[in-house]
């Protein structure tokens, strides 16, 4: 069949199971956009290429399938960069397709020419420059294969305009992909498995550190089985939230810089760390020199480059977390760690745990209340997508993350502006889900133009803006570490209700706690996207906090007496 390069792009995407792509057309990808009209793939026109990248990223995180975003050459492609780096840091299986100037102009600084493969080299798992129509089909297949296998990540394919235009006799080749230098299917040595099993059996104070790798390898059932059989408590990373149901008695909660105090203490006291699909990021370990010094460490990890990178481990089981866990489960016996678990519960009792519901309503609106009420009035089933900052940490702490892949957040890169577009991408992946974007007033404004995308696509996401009039997280650091010198953090925002209304959407404002329920309920019942402007306490901080570089157990605690609490521990 005679097909142009542009048609081959869509033929391949259809066969890869792609149903929706996010993008923005331009001069260098006109042929691809022309061919799009003949294929059964829905295209979402975003308002900025960064939005397209975040949408594809979130689509991938929620659906588990490869997310696809497109842009033209030059500025189109450079606008994708933040989104690609975000996907890279959080191992999101994504394919980015950019148009490039015609191949004979490459290197001559042609109009809208940029060295896109050069720019994205360190922030992609792999990238390609395609100059010849003959390369288009198999390059895209390789791109999808690389994006979704092993440790997933973004792959960029830059296609010269003439490669899109030229035609060729082409048949889809579905044969297995063979690449000399790429082998994602590593598995651990049996002798190492045995060592790990022995360490598990002899441990007195073990703790599991579960990360996003558990979600990516669908190892949630195995994690649960392992934790229950060995009676090992589970701490989660920010990106691992949802890997173990919040309601499970062995789930301790989040670890790290803004993790629960008892979790961090338990890690420091443990004699065995079982790291499942996590990478000992500095936000998780604090000062490495004092990190879990008494613990032996077992690391289940698919990426060999993550092993012994930050923390030296005693046993590394390199391979798919799920497969490794299954192998371990076939050998591991029932354990009992009652004393250790009781001890952790004792520490937890010391941690100023109070019921936020019991606090008298003194007329102030706190972000913790907003998020906890959001959880309550959405029956705990909402798919939560956050932006980056204080509200992100509060969303991690005060929303009870019961289900896997229901908490989407930019962890590794910490990309402000991620929230709204990611929420839209998440909704496309799960049209049946109730999507709540939780964003700060700062981050929301970085990508608020995507409200227009939501309106044009007629999709419903609910946006909760935690509006405190500051770039809150930076303000908090200025309060703690820079003597309250609030440099460039106070922020005046537009009227978000009117912004919503200007897009033909619904806007609500909440200033008192008593109004939360009605607003959330109204948002849930209203058709189309709803933006709620929550005017919260301006100078509230996220506690506990491990200062950057401090020991994990050296946390800044909420000053007592305090109008709010560290943790939402209520029984409902």
């Amino acid at each position, binding site marked *: 069949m005679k097909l142009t390069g542009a048609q081959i792009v869509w033929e391949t995407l259809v066969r890869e199971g792609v149903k929706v792509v996010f993008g923005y057309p331009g001069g260098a990808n006109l042929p691809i956009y022309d061919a799009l009209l003949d294929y059964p793939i829905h295209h979402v026109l975003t308002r900025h290429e960064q939005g397209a990248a975040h949408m594809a990223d979130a689509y991938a995180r929620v659906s588990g399938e490869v997310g696809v975003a497109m842009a033209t050459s030059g500025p189109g492609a450079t606008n994708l960069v933040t989104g690609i780096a975000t996907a890279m840091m959080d191992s999101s299986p994504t394919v980015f397709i950019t148009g490039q100037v015609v191949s004979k102009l490459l290197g001559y600084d042609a109009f809208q020419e940029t060295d896109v*493969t*050069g720019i994205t*080299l*360190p922030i992609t*798992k*792999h990238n390609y*420059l395609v100059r010849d129509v003959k390369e288009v089909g198999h390059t895209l297949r390789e791109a999808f*294969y*690389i994006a*979704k*296998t092993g440790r997933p990540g973004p792959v960029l394919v830059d296609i010269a305009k003439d490669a899109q235009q030229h035609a060729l006799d082409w048949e889809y080749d579905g044969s*297995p*992909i*063979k*690449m*000399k*230098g*790429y*082998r*994602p*299917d*590593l*598995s*651990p*040595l049996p002798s190492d498995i045995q060592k790990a099993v022995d360490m598990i059996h002899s441990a007195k104070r073990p703790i599991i550190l579960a990360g996003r790798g558990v979600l990516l390898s*669908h190892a*949630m*059932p195995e994690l*649960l089985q392992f934790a229950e059989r060995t009676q090992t408590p589970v701490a989660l990373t920010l990106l691992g939230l949802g890997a173990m*149901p919040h309601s*499970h008695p062995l789930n301790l909660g989040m670890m790290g810089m803004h993790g629960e105090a008892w979790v961090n203490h338990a890690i420091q006291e443990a004699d065995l760390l079982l790291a499942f699909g996590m990478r000992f990021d500095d936000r998780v370990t604090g000062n490495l020199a004092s990190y879990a010094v008494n613990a032996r460490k077992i690391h289940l990890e698919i*990426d*060999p*480059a993550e*092993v*012994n*990178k930050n923390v030296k481990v005693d046993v590394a089981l*390199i391979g*798919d977390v799920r497969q490794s866990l299954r192998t371990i489960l076939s050998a591991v016996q029932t354990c009992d760690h009652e004393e250790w678990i009781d001890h952790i519960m004792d520490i937890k009792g010391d941690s100023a745990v109070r019921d936020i519901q019991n606090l008298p309503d003194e007329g102030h609106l706190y972000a913790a209340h907003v998020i906890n009420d959001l959880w309550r009035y959405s029956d705990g089933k909402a798919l939560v997508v956050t932006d980056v900052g204080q509200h992100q940490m509060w969303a991690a702490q005060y929303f009870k993350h019961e289900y*896997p892949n229901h908490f989407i957040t930019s962890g590794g890169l910490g990309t402000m502006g991620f929230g709204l577009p990611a929420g839209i991408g998440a909704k496309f992946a799960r049209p049946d889900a109730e999507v709540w974007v939780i964003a700060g007033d700062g981050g929301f404004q970085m990508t608020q133009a995507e409200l227009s995308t939501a309106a044009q696509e007629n999709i419903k996401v609910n946006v909760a803006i935690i509006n405190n009039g500051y770039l809150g997280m930076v303000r908090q650091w200025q309060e703690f570490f820079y003597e309250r010198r609030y440099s460039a953090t106070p922020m005046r925002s537009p009227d978000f209700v009117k912004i919503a209304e200007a897009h033909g959407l619904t806007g609500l404002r909440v200033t008192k706690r008593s109004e939360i329920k009605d607003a959330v309920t109204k948002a849930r019942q209203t058709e189309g996207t709803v933006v709620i402007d929550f005017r919260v306490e301006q100078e509230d901080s996220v506690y506990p906090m491990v200062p950057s570089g401090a020991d994990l157990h050296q946390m800044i605690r909420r000053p007592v007496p305090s109008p709010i609490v560290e943790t939402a521990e209520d029984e409902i």
Partner: protein
Amino acid sequence: MKHTLVVLVEDKPGVLNRVASLFRRRSFNIDSLTVGRTDLPEISRMTIVLDADESNVERLTAYLYKLVNVIQVTDLTSTPAVFRDLAMIKVKATAENRTHIMQVVDVFRARIVDVTNSSFVIEITGDEDKIEGFIDVLRPWGIIEMVRTGIVAMARGTAAVPYLNGLVSSSNANSNGNGNGYHKEPEVEQVVSKYY
């Protein structure tokens, strides 16, 4: 200490850039890097010398393997191996010292490859120490210019680096190694559990 890595890569545009960019991004310093073809089409061979401790070399090796175009990384540091560097040195020659220079060239088993009335171009191969020694001897006469290729290395004995020896898929599958082979699609299955 100095480590010598032999890196087999796919012979594709941009691969050298990927490797060099990796060193820059991860803050490793390259002493020398050479690239050339192998007897196999589509495969190039790099010899990289760097100064790093053991754990950093392990880390670097893992990063190199993350590059899709990198086929195999072998550390020759603790293997008996032949290391060779080639230098061409243009040195001033006068009627008085001409014979003396030629004698030194003989002693070092170097070769004179170009002669003028006032200069020689001398070619020398050998390990780094030998070449450094030779340069030290020539320096007083006046070095006009010099070029060196950087180290290339090969293990002694019959064995080749594993990939070239066909040993990859079996011996390296369980280590940090990559290798060549077909890949199975990840299995998809439904799991029924209390929570999922």
